[in-house]
């Protein structure tokens, strides 16, 4: 099978962690590219939540079930365990209340996959030390990053919410490393972005 549309490597990596036919909620699903991939390759029951009317409209036009809504306030409506997997793909850092969002996801689904920019990356640490400035403030501002966390921070936050990290993978540019369940220090030092696979303890 030749997939004509370019599939983002991080999407492919996330899809690889999702079981066949699972019920999946993608929070901050954008135009639904990841959900589309999950639907076509994993046969999942795909649902999305997206803040923007424009991108939610594109996802709907694709035939996906998407609710235009705000994760900061709408997640509390979903019944307990209504999904098998909840995904936060490059969305957690744009949330006003990330801890609450992650906590809600842990209630809605026993597994949570979260990907985010890792501010523990050595070059970002260096920027802060050398220039006394937050790494890539312009970029962070443009993308609405409210939470410049490191991989270590996120794992600690997850564990406080009753989620254990069972596997983690680094993303550098378009390359996604292998999922491992150890080597957090190296990951935190070297990964531009991180994908964490969390499970309810």
């Amino acid at each position, binding site marked *: 099978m030749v997939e004509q549309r370019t599939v983002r490597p991080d999407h492919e990596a996330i899809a690889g962690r999702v079981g066949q036919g699972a019920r999946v909620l993608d929070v901050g699903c954008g135009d639904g590219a990841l959900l589309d991939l999950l639907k076509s390759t994993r046969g999942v029951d795909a649902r999305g939540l997206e803040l923007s*009317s424009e991108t939610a409209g594109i996802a*709907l036009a694709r035939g996906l079930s998407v609710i235009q809504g705000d994760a900061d306030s709408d997640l509390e409506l979903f019944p307990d365990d209504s999904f098998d997997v909840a995904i936060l793909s490059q969305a957690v850092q744009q949330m006003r209340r990330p801890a609450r969002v992650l906590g809600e996801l842990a209630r809605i689904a026993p597994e949570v996959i979260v990907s985010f920019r890792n501010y523990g990356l050595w070059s970002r640490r260096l920027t802060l030390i050398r220039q006394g400035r937050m790494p890539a403030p312009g970029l962070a501002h443009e993308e609405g990053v409210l939470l410049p966390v490191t991989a270590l921070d996120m794992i600690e936050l997850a564990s406080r919410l009753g989620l254990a990290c069972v596997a983690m993978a680094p993303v550098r540019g378009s390359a996604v490393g292998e999922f491992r369940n150890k080597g957090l220090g190296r990951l935190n030092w070297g990964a531009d972005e991180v994908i964490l696979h969390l499970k309810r303890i």
Partner: protein
Amino acid sequence: MPDNAPPQTSALRVLSLPEPLKLDCGETLDQVEIAYESWGEPNADRSNAILICHALTGDQFAASKNPVTGRPAWWPRVIGPGLAIDTDRYYVIATNVLGGCMGTTGPASKAPDGKPYGTRFPVITIGDMVRAQRAFIAALGIDSLFSVIGGSMGGMQALEWAAQAPEQVFTSVPIATSARHSAQNIAFYEVGRQAIMADPDWCEGNYLAEGKRPSRGLAIARMAAHITYVSESALKRKFDRGLQDREKTSFSFDADFQVESYLRYQGHSFVDRFDANSYLYVTRAMDYFDLSSRSEGRLADVFRDTPVRFCVFSFSSDWHYPPEANREITRALIAAGAEVSYLDIQSDKGHDAFLLEEPIYEKALAGFLSASAELRGI
């Protein structure tokens, strides 16, 4: 000029319900006729039927010209070959609602005594309208609908179908609607009803028998309601404070302003095609609509574990049934565990946007229906 006779109905397709219809008010209508129109063809297992539900002043002519009034189809952008509601794929049916005045039994119809019902017609509900539609669909030999789609009051019916007969609807598409009429909604429609009833030609509802029509009252009712269908910004864009065919104000009560002239036109053109008593009955049905009242105020409980797939749309500048009212439906459906999609379309066209050109909305509706059709094997 308004015609004193009820609309000419020979050009209408009408089906008589085989059984009497029990109503929420406790009364029974022995003879009910449903006027309808359809496009496309049923498939072999009759699983591709879509019911289109019209709004307060709409009719069954969603996708073709009304032969009685000569008015064009009201939803031609959406229903047709290759369009979102694709008549090459779906069998599309629209009925005139119970209590309406385009051929379905309503207050202008003849009662068993041969005279028009007038206000002797029982007060009906959205639930009654849907029960009539269910009996109609069954009479057509259709067990279940692929979709029920409607805007405004049509959206209430789409919700009511899902609540009343979840096993008979695969998908429900409520658009620019509400699960319960708000105090503001009731207030505006009460103004309209009072205008009609204050017209001496209303004759206590007996105008048809007396050869009159309360055209002034009905026109005012339409004018008041029409204001709620358009947004402030659309009125400003269209008219602002522009004067109508004059350089300055006339120091009189003529239609100096374009917006006055526009509203008067909306009122006058309406009375030729709508029955005043129908307006009373149908607005009353909307006022009585409150789905959550069936579950002690918890809308989610009405839809608990429903198998119906929903797609809810609202329009950002709609202040008749604002986005919040539609979001409330969506939130209840999420809590009920339903599969629901929701989209608030950015538009400055107000409530009427659901009938107008909004490309994202049409594409999203097409995507939802097409994906649902695949699941259903259509």
